[in-house]
């Protein structure tokens, strides 16, 4: 059996519906909301702030700490046990590594920037949604950044190359599946996150990354618009 048409009738290079908003958490220094399909991510940035324990302090630059958390009833397949687990720890780490290349923390020695990513609802592509939200929140917090980071998953379902897999596609059983989350600095064409689960040929990987890059440019436009919209407030009468 071959995969001729996507289960939700999207084109193969089409992402799910995207929504973004900035400044959703008043108590945070910067915050953002990012929704792609049924996956929702909130990111809150606190800092730069005083860093303890002291041995973590770096006298040459500030450090970035990320925390990825799926809420207990957020999953599309069952309850997630609250608190950290091996998966969330890994995703927190790759999120931090995906965001660090754009950040310039040299002006804030011995301090920390904390990013908290909360997912109240997920259906595949949660780490990518988290990275998109976090990069907007970091920009909203007024940190020096050379670019934003946009992220999406690409991959292969059966013999088709697809962009932005949903849960049905990730769990496709009638053929091989590859799930490749990627994050990129859209203005520099540099990839900051690339992971893979599954099987794909070298040529197909190159092709699908190009497909992903096109979608990431669109996601960047959404992020850009959300950031600009925050400051287009009407004058109160």
């Amino acid at each position, binding site marked *: 059996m071959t995969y001729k048409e996507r289960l939700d009738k999207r084109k193969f290079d089409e992402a799910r519906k995207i929504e973004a908003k900035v400044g959703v958490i008043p108590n945070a220094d910067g915050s953002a909301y990012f929704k792609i399909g049924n996956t929702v991510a909130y990111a809150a940035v606190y*800092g*730069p702030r005083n860093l303890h324990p002291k041995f973590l302090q770096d006298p040459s630059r500030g450090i970035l700490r990320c925390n990825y958390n799926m809420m207990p009833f957020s999953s599309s397949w069952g309850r997630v046990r609250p608190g950290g687990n091996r998966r969330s720890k890994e995703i927190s780490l790759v999120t931090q590594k995906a965001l660090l290349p*754009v950040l310039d923390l040299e002006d*804030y*020695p*011995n301090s920390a920037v904390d990013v908290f990513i909360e997912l109240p609802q997920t259906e595949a592509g949660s780490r990518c949604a988290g990275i998109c939200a976090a990069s907007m929140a970091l920009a909203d917090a007024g940190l020096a*950044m050379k670019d934003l980071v946009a992220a999406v998953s690409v991959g292969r379902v059966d013999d088709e190359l697809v962009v932005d897999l949903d849960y049905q596609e990730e769990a496709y059983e009638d053929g091989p599946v590859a799930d490749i989350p990627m994050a990129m600095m859209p203005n520099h064409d540099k990839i900051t996150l690339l992971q893979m689960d599954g099987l794909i040929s070298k040529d197909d990987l190159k092709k699908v990354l190009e497909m992903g890059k096109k979608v990431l440019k669109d996601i960047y436009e959404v*992020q850009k618009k959300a*950031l600009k919209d925050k400051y287009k407030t009407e004058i*109160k009468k």
Partner: protein
Amino acid sequence: MSKINVKDNDIAVPGEVLAVGMDSFPGIGTYREGENIIAARLGLAQLDGRTIKLIPLSGRYIPKKYDTIICAVIDVNFSGWRLDTNSPYSAMLSMKEATSQFIARGADLTKFYAIGDYVSCKIINVTSQKLVDVTMKGMGLRKLKGGRIINVASNKVPRIIGKQGSMISMIKDATKCSILVGQNGLIWIDGSPEGELLAVNSIRKIEEESHLSGLTDRVKEFLEKNKVTVKAQ
């Protein structure tokens, strides 16, 4: 031929190409990469001759030499006081810089400033590792008694003060309050309850609309509309 992609007061986001070509120069908050001048933070674009700079719209306060700030006392130790500067770094107020009074050896320093007190002070030194030293010797630097403290974004402080203090003196006149604005975003307001409330509301209005033009007129209108009959204290 160079091309400038932004107008004055446009909002720029990180990574956005502000101008192409070598005729423009990158100012604060921007950087050059090849031919392009690129935004390095979220900010308001300003064209200053051939220089393009970005005025930040958000961000924490970072201590700077000669800034006058309002701090809370968070610790008292043998040689002075540690102050919270509303930034990632705390400041040290040494006994020598705290007061011109004589402090006897072994005196109880909480008699001067106790934990939780607010003081206005001036930064005299910031090291590369952001160790901050402050002084309270100088005009208007004192312990703040009574009144209330509010917290605003530190990059809105210049708009709250206005050109030559025009905005803040307008609020002071309308509300009959004494107001002290710290560069770190803490503001001390002391007056009648109605006056304090009006001052807080007008400062919040400035904070929200600081990036829009015609601010002074709108604040003036707001103060007149909500005018309170207050007795001068």
